[in-house]
């Protein structure tokens, strides 16, 4: 699917943000009035290590077009090691999704600190653009959820 074919397409994007860094980074983006598309909806989790691969697949099942997980930069985890585990889990999960033919770029991990409002907003802008160019997620959705 091309971008032009999808002018009307508004992607559904779920962002899992850890409470301590990236959720705060998103807050900073907000208080700095740094815009990004409203397609991104954030779910707060205590730590990126709380994100279960099932949550990500579930989002796709129910019709999400892209899922992004944000956490503290490696080394800065509030719980000291959570994001290291999350990093391994997501590296494997994403590689598997790629392997079964889910388009590149539908999933992403970004480390965003509480001070990186700019990075948060840039990341979300980029991600929305990427998902918009990929178009609707049809490879991982459950057709029963279509309206």
């Amino acid at each position, binding site marked *: 699917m091309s971008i032009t074919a999808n002018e009307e397409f508004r992607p559904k994007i779920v962002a899992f943000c850890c409470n301590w860094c990236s959720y705060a980074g998103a807050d900073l983006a907000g208080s700095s009035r740094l815009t990004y598309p409203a397609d991104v909806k954030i779910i707060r989790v205590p730590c990126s290590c709380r994100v279960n691969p099932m949550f990500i697949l579930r989002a796709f099942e*129910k*019709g999400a077009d892209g899922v992004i997980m944000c956490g503290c930069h490696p080394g800065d985890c509030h719980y000291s090691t959570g994001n290291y585990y999350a990093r391994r889990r997501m590296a494997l999960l994403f590689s598997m999704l790629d392997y079964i033919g889910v388009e590149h770029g539908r999933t992403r991990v970004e480390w965003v600190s509480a001070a990186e409002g700019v990075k948060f907003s840039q990341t979300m802008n980029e991600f929305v653009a990427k998902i918009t160019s990929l178009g609707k997620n049809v490879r991982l959705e459950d057709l*029963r*959820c279509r*309206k």
Partner: protein
Amino acid sequence: MFKIAKRNLPELLRAIAAEQELYLPVNISGQTNFAVWTEGTEADLDTLKTVKSPKDMFFPQSETLYTVKKENKKLSIQPEALREQRFVAFGMKACDIQGIKVLDKVFLAEPIDTFYAARREHGTIVALACHEPEETCFCKVFGVDCAEPDADVVMWAVGEMLYWKPVTEKGKALTESVSGVLEAADEADEKAVSDEQDNIRAIVEKLPYTNLSLEGWDGNATDAKFNSPVWEKLFKPCLACGTCTFVCPTCQCYDIKDYDTGHGVQRYRCWDSCMYSDFTMMAHGNNRTSQMQRFRQRFMHKLVYFPANNDGMYSCVGCGRCVDKCPSSLNIVKVIKAFEKEAVDQ
């Protein structure tokens, strides 16, 4: 009787499909199962047994019963339409058809299962006699004659020819609709078919399980069998998977579940397996808590409870799929034999 050269089979299939939906055995990445025919689909009539039995043409693994739509705080219920298009089940075997008869006992008895009844009513069964029965077959034990399936139309594959014999009104109607591609059979053909039947029956006699004895298995055997110590030994290798159940042509248990679509709920039913730990789970828990009990249930149902409630009809047809597919090489034959041995030992 009619005939058609095997090489012209696509024409026959096309002719059937022109009229109604056609299901037939198709090999998809190495496994043969019943699938919908579309132009270009190649029939696989050489594989004796499909992996899954053809029962899901009549009783699909999963089917929606109704849909609840949610609009704001209002709910509306939309019943699922019954399947009322005619279809043909092409290439079913005698044992599979016996399986459907077992299902009929369950679903067509009061209260009638309307979903199943609609499919039965609209389906025409074109059977194929078993050209080369296999070592896991034991249909004869249950009185099934795989040389003469009980169907709307029966076919025999002999050499380069496929013989076609309409049996029922439905079968005749189907034959009528595809008469353009069929040739009338002559006496030599009749002979070829009866030879084929003799051949098949001769092979059946040589099958290792053919003389399996069902002595002692009947509707009255509940206490004797239920309390036997044999189960405790037998069940051990069972993995509690649902393979036997899901390949079985007669297993008819299903679960009813709700799926949240985000804008409502789809209530659907799907095959369940008495081997599963949550089978018939209730609020208080489970009435069969051990795998031994679950294992016993499956065979007691097939060989004791079902005949008890259905005039002696067993709900096993001897297709041998469980023999082929059980990951632990456990199956109904081994169960029957174990009891036979127990009887001898006593």
